[in-house]
């Protein structure tokens, strides 16, 4: 029944736009689809990284962190300050910003969230929402609303990689991508891989997964649940910090820049299954792709429309998300 509804919905959408679709598959329109695909994968990679932090926090702490986007904005401003006033390369700020946000995350968990951990879920919703508003307005006070941006001096022209010389921007099957976007995707991929190894190949990772699975059981085998919660929140915000540094070179920065990433991250996390890291990775790519392919097929619509259509379809078929566990 659900599958039938989804198939009909998809059919209607495609039928409405069949002329657009037909036009896109022939001749000189094909680069549009290739471009949409390339951009979709790259943006999707960044969404994945932002969302992994969010899903990790939910999986372990059962906290819906509305401040995630604000943490990301904070990371962007930290990177911006280091570049503008510290003279650092934008990418050299990555470890510093991650460390700063990691420590901030530890502090927020220990100082704020821990205090209300036995309260109903609304308490942490309101707390993190309040934190988001606080961060955004503090940034506005400190930096005003003037849009800022950082420059990557070597992002145009050509790049020498040992014996190879690569022309920028990159050309892939008729599509183009900038060095900064390619680096964001590569960086997101590497960090996601490292996080996966941390979760699956280390004792701490095993502890994090056990707390997510069953906090009581974890306590019984001697895991310090408080410490793990704190660590996880720190890791989650550090992911937001990493994503912040990676996207900063291609966005204009304002105190509300992180908000739209935060919202997208919620869609990704629910789509992938709340608490599932692999789900967030796949969800990020799916959202990125449907957003860009949607923009190629429906130029007169918001990019969010295809994302939300896909979102509704997935939830219709799998209410627990792609890789989420059904609630029994």
């Amino acid at each position, binding site marked *: 029944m659900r599958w039938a509804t989804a198939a009909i919905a998809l059919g209607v959408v495609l039928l409405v736009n069949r002329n657009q679709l037909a036009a896109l598959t022939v001749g000189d329109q094909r*680069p549009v689809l290739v471009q949409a695909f390339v951009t979709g994968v790259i*943006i999707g990679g960044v969404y994945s990284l932002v969302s992994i932090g969010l899903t990790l926090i939910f999986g372990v702490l059962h906290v819906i962190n509305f401040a995630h986007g604000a943490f990301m904005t904070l990371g962007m401003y930290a990177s911006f300050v280091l570049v503008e006033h510290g003279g650092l390369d934008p990418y050299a700020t990555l470890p510093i910003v991650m460390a700063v946000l990691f420590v901030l995350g530890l502090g927020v968990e220990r100082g704020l969230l821990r205090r209300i951990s036995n309260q109903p879920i609304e308490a942490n919703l309101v707390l993190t929402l309040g934190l988001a508003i606080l961060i955004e307005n503090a940034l*506005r006070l400190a930096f005003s609303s003037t849009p800022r*941006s950082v420059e990557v001096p070597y992002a145009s022209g050509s790049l020498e990689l040992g014996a190879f010389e690569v022309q920028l921007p990159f050309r892939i099957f008729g599509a183009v991508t*900038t060095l900064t976007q390619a680096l964001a995707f590569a960086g997101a991929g590497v960090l996601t891989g490292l996080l996966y190894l941390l979760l699956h190949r280390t004792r701490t990772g095993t502890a994090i997964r056990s707390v997510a699975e069953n906090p009581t059981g974890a306590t019984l085998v001697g895991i310090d649940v408080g410490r793990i919660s704190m660590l996880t929140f720190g890791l989650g915000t550090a992911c937001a910090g990493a994503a912040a540094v990676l996207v900063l070179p*291609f966005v204009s920065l304002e105190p509300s820049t992180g908000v739209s990433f935060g*919202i997208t991250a919620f869609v990704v996390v629910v789509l992938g299954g709340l608490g599932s890291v692999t789900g967030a990775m796949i969800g990020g790519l799916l959202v990125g792709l449907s957003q860009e392919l949607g923009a190629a097929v429906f130029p*007169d619509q918001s990019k*969010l429309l295809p994302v939300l259509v896909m979102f509704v379809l997935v939830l219709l078929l799998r209410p627990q998300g792609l890789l989420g566990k059904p609630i029994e």
Partner: protein
Amino acid sequence: MSKSRTGTIRSVAALVAFTVGMAACGSDDDADTASDATDPGSSVVVTEEPAGEPAEEPAVTETIKIGAIHPLTGPLALDGVQMDNAAKLAVERINAAGGIESLGGAQLELMSGDSEGAPDVGQAEAQRLIEDGAVALIGTFQSAVAINIANLAERSEIPFVIDVGVDDDLIKEDSRFAFRIGPNASAFGRISAQYLQVMADSAGVPVKRVAYMHEQTAFGAGVYAGFAAEAENLGMTIVEEISYDAFGSTSLTTELARVDASDADVLATTGYYPDGVLIARDAAVVAPDVSVFYGVSHGAYAQSSFATDAGDGAELAFATDHYWDTNNPRVTEIRDAFAEAYGDEMRSSAVLAYQTIEVIADALERAGSSERRALRDALSETSLSDILLAFEGPIQFDETGENTNATPAVLQVQGGAAVVVYPEQFATAKPVIPGVGWDPG
């Protein structure tokens, strides 16, 4: 203690009553003045001096209050605060030059309201300013806020002069109290299409096919509609219309690939700052095969930070925008005074706010009254030719309240800075056409 305090209050009250009487007698006619004088914000200063002292003062001059509603906090605060400061500066300079002469040198006073960028807050602030005795309102930078205030102004019968706000619907067929200094969205679109045609014709460049990217709200859609209608009249074809989310987009390469595939001569855009930067940056990467990059009603491309933020893609970008008259020495003087007073470069939105105060002062002068309806009638008969903006004629309002001579200027980024290139009487450089900041093809 309590006894002496009561005594003081009593004497202050007596003093207030006395000065109110003075004010009412001293001024010419209307009831508004008396209510002004009882207001704590008015010019009458109540001090604990012995009775009899005020009698020695000259006749109390009237204070005329103007309410200004702009986004003083929130994401649009940068422009909002500039506009509020510009209005304050205008008031100060008019007062210093002798105030409103026909009202015995009456002084102006600006009361500021913060819309926070939200329509309901803006409306509440407007209501407060009306109750505090404002005789006119100005604002608001955002159409969504202005539309609420326009309705309120109509009901309250108070003149509302729009400094920045382009939505056509702000002024309706039967509007009596709303006035707009700058062009509305459809005029922006229409005139921008005409200017494009003229500039391209004189350079011998064909502009037949236009791909248009606009942000998806009423602003982008309204300007696009005006442009598209006129472009069709002029024999151009809109080959691609792409709308996008101005504040949630991180990449517009897919959209620009569509532009490239559409075989357009012109890439036209309407939007805000972050998306303006994004389009220019992504255009430099995708390198669509167009010969003109044309921002319509686009504030971003005229901003001094644009060329730095957007890099190569910014060069040779055109933008039509309401802009100050660069050849008018009075504008230079005002912008210098602004920079000195507020330590900030005065934007075109702030020049419009300044102009708005001058328009109201001119109407007060002619009305010889600070009564709201009299002011409205005087405003509707405005014909102000010494203006700060690059308009093709004096400021004159039609029967609905639109300025019939409001025209945008065309700017182009040349060598990393925006210069006025059209209309010729305001131009400081010649338009470079064809040409874009990337290597098309």
